[in-house]
């Protein structure tokens, strides 16, 4: 972006920087101020909690205990197992969700009949609270009476699959529900992004005789890139932290095969009252996922700038 902006700027770069720096502050401050007040404090509190032995209890005393939580966590096989499940879940859901949503967004961007209806219907999963989604899917996936198995049966396909009850397939099934639940958000985001791709670019390419596929690959996709980066990053984070859906669907079962790390940390804090230890898990998640994201964002920036 700088590469594009700097040479075209009619003003002297130095002065521009100082006054614009102030303008930037003026514009950003109203957003940052409430945020500082209401999010930095709880976040810092939460992060610091990860270095204490805080426990639930009336008048319970809390002490800093350095890295004790982390040495304990290093040997906590269950946590790392759940971390692994979280990675599989987060990447699978994010990637599938992105591909499915991109396809849908491209379709919804076309001038098709009843587009308004399709666009509205595409939003359905989003309009329902996660708890309702989970209850509904449980019913749909009921092995004996659910519509999913009944539909399969009427098509003559195997229809006695115990979708959520078998440890070998529970995670993939939960992933599909996760994709379903998160699709509207990604679709709307990408659709809005597609609308921001200046039509001229496409028209210019069309005049040049570029094929649909080539235009998509060389014009649309690069223009969408900042939005794709932004939404996949957030999707990954949210999926890694997702909680309510799986909590109601399987509560981590069967046999712990869908125990996501946020469920695990939640149990540690809310059920066993080990706030300090749970916050340490949160910190580990921040560090590991954060490191990955920085690498990902760096790579995206670099390829965008080149």
């Amino acid at each position, binding site marked *: 972006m700088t590469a594009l902006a700097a040479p075209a700027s009619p003003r002297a770069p130095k002065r521009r920087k100082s006054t614009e720096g102030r303008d930037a502050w003026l514009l950003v401050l109203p957003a940052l101020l409430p945020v500082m007040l209401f999010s930095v404090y709880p976040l810092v509190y939460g992060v610091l909690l990860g270095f204490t032995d805080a426990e*639930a*209890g009336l008048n319970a005393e809390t002490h800093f205990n350095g890295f004790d939580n982390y040495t304990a966590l290093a040997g906590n096989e269950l946590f790392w197992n759940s971390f692994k499940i979280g990675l599989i879940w987060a990447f699978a859901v994010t990637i599938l969700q992105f591909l499915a949503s991109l396809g849908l967004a491209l379709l919804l961007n076309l001038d098709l009949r009843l587009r308004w209806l399709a666009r509205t219907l595409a939003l359905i999963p989003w309009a329902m609270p996660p708890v309702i989604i989970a209850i509904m899917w449980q019913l749909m996936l*009921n092995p*004996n009476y659910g519509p999913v198995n009944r539909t399969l049966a009427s098509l003559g396909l195997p229809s006695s699959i115990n979708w959520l*009850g*078998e*440890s070998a397939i529970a995670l993939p099934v939960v992933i599909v529900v996760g994709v379903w639940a998160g699709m509207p958000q990604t679709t709307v985001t990408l659709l809005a992004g597609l609308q921001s791709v200046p039509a001229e670019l496409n028209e210019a390419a069309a005049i040049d005789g570029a094929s649909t596929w080539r235009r998509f690959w060389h014009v649309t996709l690069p223009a969408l890139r900042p939005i794709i980066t932004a939404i996949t990053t957030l999707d990954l984070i949210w999926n890694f932290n997702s909680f309510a859906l799986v909590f109601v669907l399987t509560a981590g079962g069967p*046999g712990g095969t869908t125990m996501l790390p946020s469920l695990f940390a939640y*149990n540690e804090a*809310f059920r066993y009252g080990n706030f300090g230890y749970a916050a340490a898990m949160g910190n580990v998640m921040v560090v590991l996922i954060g490191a990955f994201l920085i690498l990902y964002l760096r790579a995206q920036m670099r390829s965008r700038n080149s």
Partner: protein
Amino acid sequence: MERENEMRTRTSASVAAVAGLISLPLALTGCSAFGVGDDSDEGGKVTLTFQSLAYQDTTIAATQEIVDAWNADNPDVQVELVQGSWDNVHDQLVTQFQGGTAPDVIHDESADIMGFAEQGYLADLTDLLSDDTKSAVSDDIWGTVTSSDGAIVAAPTLLQSYVVFANTDAFADAGVEVPAGESLSWDDFQALAGQLGGDGGFGLGWGLQQPTAAVMNLSLGFDGTYFEGDAINVAENELAVPERIHAMAYEDGSLDPVSLTQSGSDVLPGFFDGRYPMYVAGNYIAQQITESAPEGFNWAVLPPLAGTAGAVQAANPQTMSVAAESEHVEESAAFIDFFMQAEHQAALAQGDWLIPSSDTARELVAEQTAGENGWDAILASGEGLSAAPFQSAVNYPQWKDQYATPALQQYLADEITVEQLQTQLTDGWNDLG
């Protein structure tokens, strides 16, 4: 230069506009639409908050009636009824206890509150509850609401037990007699399931998606106590119930293994359509059966299941407690006394199809229902409910989530052997140390 100035003033103008927008909600602070500042000052009167988890419409109405009656009798101590939900009460209380904003009177269950009691969040009611309340409930049940330092932290209200529901028409079709008597032994139960099943059909459906509570509670019938103090002991007695369930599912073929991975309500339609002539669930399911069974569906509750130690199950009563930080502990305790009166408990029990822990209320329910709709067997199963050692093992909730539930799920899905189950349960507990 000029242009820049203009730009800056315009920017400042837009900043001001934005700042104005932000302060908008703050300006609305006085506006009661946001609920700010409508704190009611009732001049000397005490107002207690009572969060009830009543779920069935009948129970909600019964609760409201009790509260109304109290409010009419006690103009100086008014109770405000707040509706909570079972699904989230634990998380809600954890947060509210931390913030000191928990309701004065708290409705929950023994398995959930004993951890709060150990953390000091619940008031000691030992000397505050009346003798009438205390004498109406057996010492065994009081044991489930007594903390490790001997303080009573709640009044036990309603109990559930696991019972066997029978489709009596299916029994008749199979030419099997519906068992009667004081209790039904596990051996007879298994034989019954075998007789009713056969020909690829099943004798029994049992929603054991969350198996731990059912297994632990029923194991008491074989003296399977699991814990001695804080030491775990998983031996023959403890494994009897899971082994028998496993045998029915995978050796006799009389129990549908799919049902073991589902919740109780998921299995219910299978009971209705005759797929499962017998169905094991919490006794409160009787309410759903009466309300949603197909026309002409005939059913009964079989006598309570008995192991080698008799028809005993662990009791996990619903509870009424008072927050330790409440400013009105005495008044709250007085309200609980009122709430515990036999006629109130009897009304609530019938609304939820649960068993009153108070003996007098139990007699009242027997009288009022005349034992219809399985009430005689349901009330009988209440006789064998008592406290179990696992209820006072400190790390029990964590062990249950992290080791017992996954291990039992795997065992009941025939993915691990009983030896592996035994090892996982034992080692898991010892890892928690």
